[in-house]
């Protein structure tokens, strides 16, 4: 992984994070916004596999934990996105994923990511986590992420694919 590729991936994460906290609150439903950072991790997983995605997920999660409006215990999004990157990466086959695979992966990843985050909050005894409310938030977030998939995933996956080194066809 060259420096330039790492920087491009990092830039994607930063852009996603800034858009997620500044632009999307204006279209949010009850404060729930699409998790763009998670979509970046999924795009990385589907094109580059679980290891790259897990590392990217960790970096993105730490950024999400520490960037200004966040006030929860740091490391919770990092844990969630490492798992998301790794699991979504396992879905990847060697050929290009079909549209339905991408959508299903995003839905699953979003569900797992938000749930792991919420569960870690319950384990730590953070306030504001009753099961009904959490489930609503998680499901709306899944819906948001799936809705944004057709607009966000293709360019991101294209970018990650171009970052890939030239492969000699086997």
């Amino acid at each position, binding site marked *: *992984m060259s420096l330039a590729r790492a920087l491009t991936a990092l830039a994607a994460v930063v852009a996603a994070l*800034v858009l997620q906290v500044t632009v999307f609150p204006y279209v949010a439903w*009850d404060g729930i916004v699409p998790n763009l950072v998670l979509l970046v991790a999924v795009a990385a997983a589907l094109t580059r596999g679980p*290891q790259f995605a897990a590392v990217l997920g960790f970096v993105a999660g730490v950024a999400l934990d520490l960037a200004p409006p*966040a*006030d*929860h215990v740091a490391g919770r999004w990092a*844990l969630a996105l*490492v798992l998301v990157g790794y699991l979504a990466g396992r879905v990847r086959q060697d050929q290009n994923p079909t549209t339905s695979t991408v959508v299903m992966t995003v839905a699953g990843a979003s569900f797992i990511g938000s749930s792991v985050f919420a569960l870690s909050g319950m384990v730590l005894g953070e306030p504001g986590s009753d099961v009904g409310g959490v489930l609503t938030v998680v499901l709306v977030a899944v819906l948001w992420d799936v809705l944004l998939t057709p607009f966000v995933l293709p360019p991101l996956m294209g970018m990650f694919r171009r970052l890939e080194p030239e492969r000699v066809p086997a």
Partner: protein
Amino acid sequence: MRLDGGFNRSRERRWRSLQDLDEPRRPSRALLVALVLASVSLITLDSQGGTDSPVEPVRRAVGEVFGPLESGTAAVIRPITAIPGWFRSHDSLRAELSALEAENAGLRSEVASSDFDRNRLAEYDGLTAAADELGYALVPARVVALGPSQAFSRTVTIEAGSEAGIRPDQTVINNDGLVGRVLRTTGTTATVLLIIDTGSTVGGRVGGSMEMGFLKGRGDVGDSGLLDLELVDQAEVPAKHDVVVTWGSNGGAPYVPGVPVGRVTSVFSSLRETSQRAVIEPFVDFGALDLVGVAVPSGTPSDRALIEVDGSLR
């Protein structure tokens, strides 16, 4: 031959581990375990430390980077987010204006004779002390970023920080009433905990009876963004439409006294807990936060014009 090659490769792999990240076939369990452990240790570090957490300097450093980015993006998109306002017709705006003027006049007379003020005067709880306590200047700032609901906490970023004279534990208000308090600052931004967060507790006073109590957030925004009021004197029943204001604490941290918070909408009594629980509807519309003011001691050096106690800009 085969063994030799395998040995070399495994030796090399240790040094080229970053390139192995691209290897699709055999995802490394060890890497996953390492990353999960890193996350868990980060959680442990931060949850054990509380406010003196070792993660706090890192948080501040990350904030210094992301703060200007968020402020910049918010400034760029502000003209776009204002677009829905243009589509309202002149007539509807006129109608709205007269309705608001009428409402404003009504509110003014209501405020002039509000129970809280009368009680406060009657009690004469040290006018000099009150003047001292209320002697705050306001740092005007715009909200540039909102935390998502998925994080289950209600925080926002404002585009004024320690350079504008803002310190942690200062009160944040807007035109309508109490917004929250400052959690932490960077040079150019500050993170504000909204009073509707489930972790927020505000000391409140019911204007009509001067009874004291504690306001806790429910964690919802929008119409359901309500607060629960639990009174210290459990025999007291707050009346509907009573106004609740902050009672503040010594030195005005974290909340300065006398800031309107909300209005009582309903009262529940719980037989088991033998306490009264009132539901408060906040005056502030947390779904549409924009311009806020941070209460700082009068005369604080700042990088921008402050709104002084007498209403002048300085």
